[in-house]
């Protein structure tokens, strides 16, 4: 059949349609069986419903090669030679939230500064090397990891890996760089309150985890520590949070796993484990307070920014896949019933969406968006109703099927690029997932039932809402919800009062 189509089209391709002016002559198609109607397109039966899928091509995640260096560092490699590219990520478990005694803002600053020079490379050499290699590299910290990333052409990858090793293992923390970075961060603090979304998320984390929880502290601006942070402090913090025993190097792309393992041993083998280094402890459980509504005043704002969410379990727990599917139904999918209600029926927001932050400890699922100020209570009622419905009655079958399909098939997209492969495989060390995680994920997604979704959906009473908007204009609306205590903060985020409405 396909050959027949091919032959027919070959005839078509050799037919006579004119290319647009200024472009080389192109293979063209002959006129279709019936000429186009001027200004009118004839209907046809095949347009009445969606086309059936073609036979699905067999695809499975590529195998992951695992090895470990003598110093404890783990190596995970995925081989793919479709393009001459390699991506890598060096992850060290812990990150902003892993070491409760270390201020997250200082851990983050140390991670950024580390990239700007090593004991053998000046800052100029680091960037000059990247430019010559045409490589993309950098360092950053997440709640659960300190990371160094690299993307390079195959021919440049080895030199890029040496660069990565230098900045992670022997960063120089040059005084000039520390001074500049400190000054920049302190300056940025002045603008901190302008970002309503950031303010809303910071307070939502505090509301759902409890303000002292490491994940809530990781959202703090660092205004109390950054102005006085010294080079010595950064060196001490780096030594505390970075150790080969907690490190994993993930590599994906055009490499030979055996040769790479030998090369990594030669590059990182001399990185010594510090016997006094303690791995990051388990994250504590959340301790949310009783207040369900938090309002931050933004005088004159015609819109209100809403963050509405609750904590979930860790990414390594057995119900993780069911929770990910719940997330699709709470605004992750743009076709979710919640999204359609908020956007198209209420007309309340163009950009609201659901998010699910996977974490080593308790995760967080939330909806975030800006809404017409006068529709704030309507939106909160719709959010509450949807969570209540999923928790008490479970999802409609069609929406469940759509969410499962979307989640199950997202793996192929994730593995399309070497950068995507590294990002996916990095989930294994970050969240403590098994090597067969991706090989079994699609089947686990398809096995999720409506009952499992019900069980995984957050309880309505666990949800907390933060609203950044014009306080006087919001008071009556929020009181009408009858959600109990309401915290009121001024524009700087300082708690003014807690009231009962």
């Amino acid at each position: 059949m396909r050959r027949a189509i091919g032959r027919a089209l070959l005839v078509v391709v050799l037919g006579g349609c004119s290319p647009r002016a200024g472009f080389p002559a192109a293979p063209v198609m002959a006129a279709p069986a019936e000429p186009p109607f001027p200004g009118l397109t004839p209907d046809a039966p095949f347009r009445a419903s969606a086309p059936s899928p073609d036979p699905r091509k067999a695809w499975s995640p590529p195998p992951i090669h695992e090895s470990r260096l003598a110093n404890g560092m783990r190596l995970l490699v995925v081989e793919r030679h479709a393009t001459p590219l390699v991506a890598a990520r060096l992850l060290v478990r812990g990150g902003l939230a892993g070491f409760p005694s270390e201020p997250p803002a200082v851990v983050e600053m140390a991670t950024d500064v580390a990239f700007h020079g090593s004991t053998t490379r000046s800052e100029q050499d680091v960037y000059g090397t990247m430019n010559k290699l045409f490589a993309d590299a950098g360092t950053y910290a997440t709640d659960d990891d300190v990371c160094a990333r690299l993307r390079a052409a195959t021919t440049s990858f080895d030199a890029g890996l040496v660069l990565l090793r230098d900045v992670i293992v022997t960063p120089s923390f040059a005084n000039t760089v520390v001074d500049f970075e400190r000054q920049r961060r302190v300056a940025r603090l002045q603008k901190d309150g302008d970002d309503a979304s950031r303010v809303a998320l910071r307070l939502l984390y505090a509301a759902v985890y409890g303000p002292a929880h490491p994940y809530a502290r990781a959202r703090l601006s660092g205004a109390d520590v950054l102005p006085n942070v010294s080079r010595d402090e950064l060196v001490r913090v780096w030594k505390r949070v970075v150790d080969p025993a907690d490190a994993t190097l993930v590599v994906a792309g055009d490499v030979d796993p055996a040769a790479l393992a030998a090369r990594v041993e030669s590059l990182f083998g001399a990185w010594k484990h510090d016997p006094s280094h303690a791995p990051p402890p388990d994250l504590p459980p959340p301790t949310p307070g009783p207040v369900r509504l938090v309002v931050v005043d933004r005088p004159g704002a015609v819109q209100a920014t809403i963050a509405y969410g609750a904590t979930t379990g860790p990414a390594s727990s057995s119900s993780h896949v069911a929770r990910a599917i719940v997330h699709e139904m709470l605004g992750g999918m743009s076709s979710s019933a919640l999204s359609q209600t908020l956007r198209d029926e209420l007309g309340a927001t163009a950009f609201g969406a659901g998010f699910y932050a996977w974490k080593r400890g308790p995760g967080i699922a939330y909806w975030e968006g800006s809404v017409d100020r006068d529709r704030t209570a309507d939106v909160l009622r719709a959010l509450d109703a949807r969570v209540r419905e999923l928790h008490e009655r479970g999802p409609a079958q069609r929406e469940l099927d759509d969410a499962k399909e979307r989640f199950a098939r997202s793996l192929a997209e994730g593995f399309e690029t070497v950068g995507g492969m590294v990002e996916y495989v990095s989930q294994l060390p970050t969240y403590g997932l098994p090597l067969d995680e991706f090989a079994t994920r699609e089947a686990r997604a398809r096995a999720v039932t409506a009952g499992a979704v019900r069980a995984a959906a957050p309880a309505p009473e666990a949800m907390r809402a933060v609203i950044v908007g014009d306080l006087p204009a919001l008071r009556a609306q929020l009181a009408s919800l009858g959600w109990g205590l309401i915290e009121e903060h001024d524009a700087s985020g300082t708690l003014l009062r807690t009231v009962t409405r």
Partner: protein
Amino acid sequence: MSRPSVRIASAGRAGRTGLAGVVALLAASFATHARAQGAPQAPEGAPVPRVVLPNGLVVLLAEDHKAPVVGLELRYPVGSRDDPPGRPGLAALTQRLMVRATKHLAPGQYERELDAAGAWDVKSTTSLDRTEFHAEVPADRLALPLWLWSDQMGFFVERVDDKLVAEQLAVVLDEHTQKVDSAPAGRLHDLVDAAMYPPEHPYHGGWLRGSTELASVTVREVRAFAEAHYRPDQATLALAGDLESVRALALVHRYFAPVGTAGKPVRADGRRPHLDREVRLTVAAHVELPMVMLAWSTPPSHAPGDAELDLVAQILAGSRAGWLRWKLVDELKIATQVTAHQSSRELGSQFAVEATATRGHRPEELVDAIDHVLEKLRASPPDDYATEGATTGYLVDPSFGLEQSGARADRFAECEEYRVPGGCVEAWLTRYTSIHAADLTAVAVRELPVDRRVVAMVFPADDAPIGGELRDVAPRQR
């Protein structure tokens, strides 16, 4: 520290290093061509196999089998610049309506079909110059976007009604409020556009113009606008990834070839404005810190100077060592942040520098410091280190991004739009890697003069709206 001597790459990849070598390697890697017997081949000089349907639709097919994924992009040359007088936002509203419902698709079905198929990176956008529909789908669902998009092209006008217009009007107005009225100094860009482009220019008033006039738009107007602009003889459809060209072409033909057109499209036109003086705007906004925006009228997208200005922006503020960042943030400590960008547009681009002051410093100080840095660039070229850094910084992410089929579809559609001859990816990369330091100084002298520009200064004011309001306009002679 010694450089590595052990080769860890797979066989056959060694040899080319350095910027030029790596760029050539990437260009070769992403310049995909169909290899299947009987499949259409790229014509001489064209980037990928290209077919024109009888109704004028241009189809680009870039077949490869790196991953079981196909990226698709459908572009129409219609944007906010084509909004009729008195109807700002009509292009954005029409694009939203086309996604919401068509003759064979119930409200909401478009998104549901794509979600259920496992599609991702699903986007539909309207900019000043164009409207784009974009998706990546599993290879076995290639036909789905073709069905959806051909229904938009051929059967939208029959479906749109008062209820749908009212519903999506609320969404568009909310988008305007969110991006313009509720964002700190969110009206700044529109105010600058209004000062730079004359009232008769299609860009006057910017991308998200005032929206109150749109509230009275009728279904008849929407239909007329759609029939005039969203038509096959103006559109480009690009497909890249795990497809069989012959089969894909058959599907495209099935869904799009019957779509008809009538009349001739008329686009809003205009020329790049040439300012003859500096114009100063005083803007008040309910924000924490003063801000400035300096904007120049610059060459249109893809014209000589456009790419050079991309690299100038990179040198000024594209990295931690950007000249403006170094001067304003690190040395003088008068700014919390600085950005620079060349906003490429078909009827005249705009180069802009924006900065936010630290507490206690005034906008005028920022303007003086920005001028000092620009004068240095006009006086002498950057060194090779800075130029190479700017080139790498600008190209590296989108280059590696081409590994994604959707990004390749987007790139090929752009090459078609701007009639880029030869290898699309190679031409794009060469356009930037052939720029020398002296070119950057030359373009700064020519296109970023100190006496022909718009300077907007934003002052915090508690009695002003968050989005900002214009308090004064003053031509300034030097």
